């Protein structure tokens, strides 16, 4: 068996994962090859050193920092949650549209023409409302004049069709 192959098998050999034949081959190679034998003992020493690696305690200051995370996160989350709350979304959408319209108006290159157009539309609206009001008034007057006739007609109506005694 070549040294490269033995190197690959050293770790599985230590963990007892080789077949009987492989194990024998590795052992006979280690008996004759000083280099591999030294590597094998170094590997054993490496694994032993790693196993004995001590466990350290966590400092109080680190524990304080970790315990502080949830409350810090909650504060941070609060501001975002408020904005991202679904019930606020229609309001935020309306505000966005309103801002878009205002900015469109503010930065429109022909703002004066827009102003005139808006004025004209408002005047037209006023005159339409005035006309409607006048019509309603004349209708109410004619209704008042016919009031007596309407009352008599209503009294004469006999919905059940019974004869008067």
């Amino acid at each position, binding site marked *: 068996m070549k040294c490269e192959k033995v190197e690959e098998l050293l770790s599985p050999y230590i963990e007892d994962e080789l077949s009987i034949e492989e194990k024998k081959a590795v052992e006979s190679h280690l008996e004759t090859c000083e280099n591999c034998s030294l590597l094998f003992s*170094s590997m054993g020493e490496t694994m032993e050193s790693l196993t004995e690696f001590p466990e350290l305690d966590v400092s109080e200051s680190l524990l304080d920092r*970790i315990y502080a995370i949830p409350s810090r996160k909650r504060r941070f989350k609060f501001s975002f949650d408020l904005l991202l709350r679904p019930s606020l979304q229609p309001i935020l959408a309306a505000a966005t549209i309103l801002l878009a319209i205002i900015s469109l108006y503010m930065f429109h290159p022909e703002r004066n023409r827009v102003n005139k157009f808006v004025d004209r539309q408002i005047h037209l609206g006023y005159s339409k409302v005035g006309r409607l009001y006048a019509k309603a008034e004349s209708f109410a007057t004619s209704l008042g004049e016919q009031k007596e006739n309407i009352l008599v007609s209503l009294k004469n109506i006999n919905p059940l069709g019974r004869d008067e005694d």
Partner: protein
Amino acid sequence: MLVDSYSKRVFNMAYQFAGSYEEAEDLTQDIFLKLYNSLPKYDFEKNFSAWFLTLARNYMIDNYRKTKWEKKTRDEFNEHLLSSDAFDSPENGMVREESKKIIWESLNYLSPEIRMTVILRDIQGKKYEEIAEIINLPLGTVKSRVNRGRLQLAKILKEKKERKNEM
């Protein structure tokens, strides 16, 4: 509860991986912050420890990749370790201590993936199956990484010893 159960484990893992006490503290804090952000995504049918250690492992390796040029050195070997129990026993002679120092310092020569696998297997003593779950790789790949890591460290130790004997 979460902090009590996992802070020591994560801190030690970070220290074994990064080799710097301060950096391990920062990494631990960042990992817990990431944990709180990721908790809503946790699938309750999964093993929590493995899930959390996967998250920690991924964070450490990603962080290492981003800042690897600053991560060449580890803390002085004696700074935090000599005060612990491993060096109290009288049979731990100078030679043994020297070997431990070499192994400890050589961990940084391993690639982050191999280093993490060696840490999980040889320092933390986890089973290969557990490691495969944490690093989300087939068992064969895990074993191959452990073998390569041990071999690299053993070669470094052997070379340093031979050089010392030549002097």
